[in-house]
């Protein structure tokens, strides 16, 4: 890292018709540093990036790139100036080859025709720089999300970027893939590029960043060197509250004698989950741990009727139930908040009100519509109860930030007043403050007698909240551990080694 400043944003203001999204924010980026941009959802991180990349046009302040004032008019222009962005969602064409994706829009030409040889050769070179040994002539969709992510970074870097912006590039990557990405980032850093890094994972910030800038409610909180703040201080600065207040969570209280709410007896679907048995008591929080693809999502789907079981049986309050579709489960007061919020959760074009009322309405059937007043009351109630940040219940859900969308989906299910609530990765991709709030809500619901199934990849939150934890691996339940006594290391061992480690922990 040198001290040479490559980018300076001074007193940036962004006034939208209703809100001031940025109020006199300063930001500086040095050559060869990784600079984390932090803040809760809605703090103004994205808006700042959008001002820099020309998606939004700042209403005040200056942007100075290498000593020259610039004002990017659109992302294309920003790219020409040397500012490249990789967004959270991969903005590539899955049907084109890797090489085509990298060079789309700027294909090398020869005699007025596209020079395929050159494209593929240069794509190969570029991939080699990223230590990726892949066939660049195959369609992008053949490769994993991580590789696709690398390709979009490669594309961003290849256009002679001086500044690279990575907006939550790691939220869909596993640990090894994150490591690969960080190696690439370090190399780019060494070559003198300034990198702006946005993520919700605090560990990653400390691992890769040199400095950080914190925003809160559109204001600058401060810029710090990475060693100047501890994690706890950092979170406190981000949310503006003392962290203990939020993290002081109490596990649900369940007695031995509490009745079983839901029982699954040797259920399975061929090829997905072989055989799983579990039970949840009334008011209990049962955690599901395991890697992606270990069958935890499929198990949740079986309990909800989204995946039809081909063997075994499910009992609710001691009664055998047969869910053929989600509607059946909802009628029996089972609710399921799916993992992929965008694909399976939100109805983007509909308002917050309609999204919240949807499951209640679906249970009543369309012939018994909720009156507008009922819907308004329901929406207002949950917007207030969950602290959903929106100017109005009539705003489209697609326009909310991820954390707020998640709260709306949660509200949709809370409104059905379920007995069993299954939450699949409810805290993924949302910030620390919202995460803590969702955990608090889950535990509150347990207190009200709801049985909660909580699936998460983040072991610390599972351990913090669960009464018991079911550990899954390769479509099987390998162990069940007590949430109050087990450690992250125990669970990791079990996931890594399977049932043998489980016996040791139990013994």
């Amino acid at each position, binding site marked *: 890292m040198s001290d040479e400043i490559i980018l300076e944003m001074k007193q940036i203001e962004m006034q939208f*018709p209703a809100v001031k999204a940025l109020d006199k924010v300063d930001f500086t980026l040095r050559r060869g540093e990784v600079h984390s941009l932090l803040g809760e959802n809605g703090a103004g991180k994205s808006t700042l990036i959008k001002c820099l990349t020309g998606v939004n046009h700042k209403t005040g302040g200056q942007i100075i790139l290498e000593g020259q004032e610039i004002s990017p008019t659109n992302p294309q222009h920003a790219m020409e100036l040397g500012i490249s962005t990789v967004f959270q969602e991969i903005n590539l064409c899955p049907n084109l080859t890797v090489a085509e994706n990298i060079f789309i829009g700027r294909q090398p030409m020869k005699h007025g025709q596209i020079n395929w040889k050159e494209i593929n050769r240069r794509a190969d070179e570029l991939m080699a720089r990223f230590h990726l040994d892949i066939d660049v002539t195959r369609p992008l969709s053949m490769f994993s999300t991580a590789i696709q992510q690398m390709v979009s970074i490669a594309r961003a870097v290849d256009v002679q970027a001086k500044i690279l912006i990575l907006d939550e590039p790691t939220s869909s990557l596993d640990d090894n893939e994150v490591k690969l990405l960080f190696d690439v980032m370090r190399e780019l850093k060494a070559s003198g590029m300034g990198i702006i890094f946005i993520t919700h994972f605090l560990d990653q910030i400390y691992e890769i960043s040199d400095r950080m800038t914190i925003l809160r409610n559109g204001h600058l909180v401060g810029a710090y060197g990475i060693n100047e703040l501890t994690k706890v201080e950092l979170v406190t600065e981000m949310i503006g509250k003392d962290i203990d207040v939020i993290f002081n969570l109490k596990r649900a209280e369940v007695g031995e004698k509490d009745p079983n709410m839901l029982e699954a007896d040797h259920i399975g679907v061929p090829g997905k989950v072989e055989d799983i048995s579990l039970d949840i008591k009334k008011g209990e929080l049962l955690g599901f741990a395991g890697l992606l693809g270990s069958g935890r999502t499929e198990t949740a789907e079986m309990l909800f009727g989204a995946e039809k079981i081909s063997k075994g049986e499910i009992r609710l309050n001691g009664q055998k139930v047969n869910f053929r*579709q989600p509607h059946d489960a909802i009628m029996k007061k089972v609710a399921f908040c799916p993992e992929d919020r965008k*694909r399976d959760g939100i109805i983007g074009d509909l308002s917050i009100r309609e999204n919240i009322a949807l499951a209640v309405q679906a249970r009543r059937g369309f012939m018994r519509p909720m009156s507008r007043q009922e819907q308004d009351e329901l929406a207002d109630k949950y917007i207030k109860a969950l602290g959903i940040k929106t100017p109005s219940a009539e705003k489209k859900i697609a326009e909310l930030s991820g954390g707020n969308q998640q709260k709306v989906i949660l509200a949709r299910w809370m409104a059905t007043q379920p007995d069993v609530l299954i939450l699949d990765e409810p805290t993924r991709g949302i910030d620390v403050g919202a995460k803590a709030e969702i955990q608090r809500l889950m535990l509150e619901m347990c207190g009200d007698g709801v049985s909660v199934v909580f699936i998460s990849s983040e072991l610390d939150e599972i351990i913090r909240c669960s009464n018991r934890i079911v550990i899954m691996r390769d479509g099987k339940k390998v162990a069940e551990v007590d949430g109050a006594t087990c450690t992250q290391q125990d669970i990791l061992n079990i996931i890594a080694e399977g049932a043998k480690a489980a016996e040791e922990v139990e013994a």
Partner: protein
Amino acid sequence: MKTKKFNWSQITRSKITWAIVAEILILLVCFIIRPDFFSISIQPSTGVLYGSLIDIVNRSAEITIIAMGMTLVIALGGTDLSVGALVAVSGAMALKLMRWDVLEYNTPGDYTVYPFFLVLLLPLVTCTLMGLFNGLLIAKGGMQPFIATLILMVSGRGIAQILTNGKQFTTMYSPFRMIGQGNLGPIPMPIVIMVVICILMGIFVRKTAFGTFVESVGVNRSASRLSGISSDKVILIVYALTGLLAGIAGLIYSSRIMSNDSNNAGINYEMDAILAVVIGGTAMTGGKFSLVGTFVGSLIIRTIVTFVYYFGIVSEATMAFKALIIAVVIVLQSEPVREYFAKRSEARAARKSA
């Protein structure tokens, strides 16, 4: 109660506004060229309203009725290409039932072989089932709506031909004539039927939660299913309903000509209905829809056709002329144009308040 604030920029952003503006503009041109275009009188002999405007509404009935169903189909993110063919099936079936005796006794007259209620009921049931068939292919078979409905679009006319052994029947049965050529008081019957259907549809989608379910499934089928909506059921109902509406349109059409014409009945109706929906502001990608918009859209299409006839534009140029006007209407409704006017009115409002 919240009171709605009058918001000019919201109005200029709405597609329906621009559809209405377009309709008024076209009518205005008509008025400038021929002031008598707007005259409405009562025909002394029959007591029925008479005039170009009445004619436009009357003649738009079939497309409007079909387009009501098409709106829901498109809101689901689909298309239904088979409606035109179903118009032909419905007409052929009605005529077949009235003229079952055509082989022995081949003079058309004021009679029907099968009871009148069957003449009305069977074609409608058939068309509803054919719509349901479309829905099954799409919901259960997972086919693209375009391909699934193409099957009946192509084969429907063949079925209509088979029903009547490839012959064109005519009838003079007067109750049947009432549907397309009769009147209720001073109002032509097709208008009455159309208005009743529009009102019923409006009630069905907005006074129940069906409209919300359609929008929800249209935007995100997977999320809707996981929220407890039986997406398949919604799809089946919508396509069956559209089949039924096409059947009703088919009865009106064949009653107008008192004959079945399997080759020409309902030709291009699917395109006009889709167009009416799109002009009415419902996006082809599915989601939010507007039945009122569709109604205006259908009127626009018919106004253009009448305009073309009325002003004696050479028949070879009719299609091109129609296309030209529709292109202008669609451009008027496009995102950039609406955005431009909305920005202007916002700026004006800002100046006023400053």
